[in-house]
């Protein structure tokens, strides 16, 4: 297994290992090879590196054409350039056609784009992709999970959207932890006062909040949701069933992502209060940690929101 650190290197490492395993995979890049930390992949396998120029719509179309021949293309770029600039191509030529194209969208969230600012931070991708039938949405929390998510995506038939941030996110999962096919991994199980559900790179903050709450006598369960809008949410419902308060935390707009998904599960299955911690406005440039804290993702704020919802 190739060595990697963070979600971007993990993506490139998994793609490399898939080639070694004999899979007919390709990296389709709209001048994003460097940003995807995939230069070694391109140098090692020049035929598997499909350069499309700074042209995301073209990259998605090229991948769709390739997929009709049995190839498994992974389009790697920034999440918003894929889902917004090339959104129609993703919808019509991959979703509607149900072709075997995989998308790896990085710079997701304010912390994903951090110092680059709003033009390179994307908090709308999940709202769009979750409205596309046939797409599966995988939201790995760190590099170890991303590596496994890419490997899983290659096995899944049909379109897959992988969401990643900057590549500098903290590593939370051990290397040997599986990518949960249940769509949920419970990270802390201190009790049922509340269930805090996290998706993506805010997981370390959610776990820290759970620890802080425990010290205050509020015992919560903290879990990572790694598959959004999946076919089988039974395990997620099982975890939600033990509480009267669910708090969702995501580096995405408050509409269309984890909070919307969990609200839907709650209203359709077992009504429970759902409080959403997410972005409600465009963010700004800044180092990831300070920016995340400012946008409400500090462990202290997450803990405070949970305590307030519980009336404590």
């Amino acid at each position, binding site marked *: 297994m190739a060595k990697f650190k963070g979600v971007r290197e993990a993506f490139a490492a998994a793609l490399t290992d898939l080639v070694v395993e004999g899979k007919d995979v390709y990296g389709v890049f709209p001048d994003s090879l460097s940003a995807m930390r995939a230069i070694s992949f391109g140098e090692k396998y020049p035929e598997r590196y*499909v350069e*499309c120029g700074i*042209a995301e*719509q*073209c990259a998605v*179309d090229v991948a769709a*054409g390739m997929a009709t*021949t049995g190839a498994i293309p992974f389009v790697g770029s920034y999440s918003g350039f894929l889902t917004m600039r090339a959104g129609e*191509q993703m919808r019509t*030529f991959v979703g509607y056609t149900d072709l075997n194209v995989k998308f790896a969208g990085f710079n997701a969230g304010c912390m994903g784009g951090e110092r680059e600012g709003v033009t390179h931070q994307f908090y709308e991708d999940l709202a769009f992709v979750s409205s596309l039938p046939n797409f599966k949405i995988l939201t790995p929390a760190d590099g170890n999970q991303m590596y496994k998510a890419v490997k899983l995506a290659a096995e899944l038939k049909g379109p897959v959207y992988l969401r990643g941030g900057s590549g500098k996110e903290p590593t939370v999962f051990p290397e040997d932890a599986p990518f949960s096919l249940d769509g949920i991994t419970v990270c802390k199980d201190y009790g049922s006062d509340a269930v805090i559900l996290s998706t993506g790179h805010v997981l370390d903050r959610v776990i820290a909040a759970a620890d802080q709450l425990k010290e205050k006598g509020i015992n919560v369960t903290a879990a990572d949701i790694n598959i959004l809008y999946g076919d089988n949410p039974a395990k997620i419902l099982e975890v939600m069933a033990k509480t009267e308060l669910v708090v969702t935390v995501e580096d995405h707009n408050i509409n269309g992502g984890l909070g919307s998904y969990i609200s839907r599960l709650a209203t359709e299955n077992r009504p429970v209060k759902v409080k959403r911690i997410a972005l409600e406005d465009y963010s700004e440039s800044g180092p990831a940690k300070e920016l995340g804290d400012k946008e409400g993702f500090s462990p202290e704020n997450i803990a405070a929101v949970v305590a307030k919802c519980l009336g404590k």
Partner: protein
Amino acid sequence: METAALQKIARRVRFEAVRMIYEGKEGHPGPALSCADIVATLYFDVMNINPDEPDWEDRDRFILSKGHGCPIWYATLNERGYLKPKVEHFHLRELGSIFQGHPSMHSGVPGIDMTTGSLGNGIAIGAGMAYAAKVHKKDYYTYVICGDGEMQEGVTWEGVNMAKGRGLDNLVVFVDNNGWQSYKTIEFTIGQNNMADRFRAFGWHTQEINGHDVEQIKAAVLIAKKTPGSPHAIICRTIKGRGLSYMENNNKWHKGVPTEEQWAITQTELGGE
């Protein structure tokens, strides 16, 4: 195939395309008729295909990037033997019909290599197919028919760049250069209609032909196949609505349905053998 036989087939599929629009009471007859000779020549002479095995992995690929012209494609697939049994009434655009308003690769029509209809995407998708042929060591060609109006879509030129950059000389793009788009002429819309100059400027091997002359279409493909190194553009001068006196060069027929009187004219001008 002999020229006279190809011309006869082109006439036949023109009639069938207009018939399905007349019966279905909706569709784009003008854009269908302008590319009829290209589609017929590809399916009955140029392309290496097997209607009994539409998904044959070594087949030549075809994309109708101007998907709204699909009645001519449906009619040609039917004449070529893809539909079994042969379709008598297409029920174009009707609820439950396999013949969707724009072509779908999963609606049940055999031989549709790619869903189209959203303009501008055919070249980039074709480039993907052509790239896959190269890396899979296959010798099939990918043929794309674009409208001249859809060349206004930016993604078209993204695909043109990519195909040139990757040296996809197994990609052949026909531009159905009828000079019209939905509202008015290409010249009115963007001030010029210099398709060949544009493709040459992007480094493509470019030819200009009469898109209603099946001999010229065949010859242009042969020249393209003998010219390695770059993708190929064949700019086809065409007439929108070609083949029907009341439709030719009349943009009212971009989308429309013949009246009973016009249907009678259609039967006279295109019907019979």
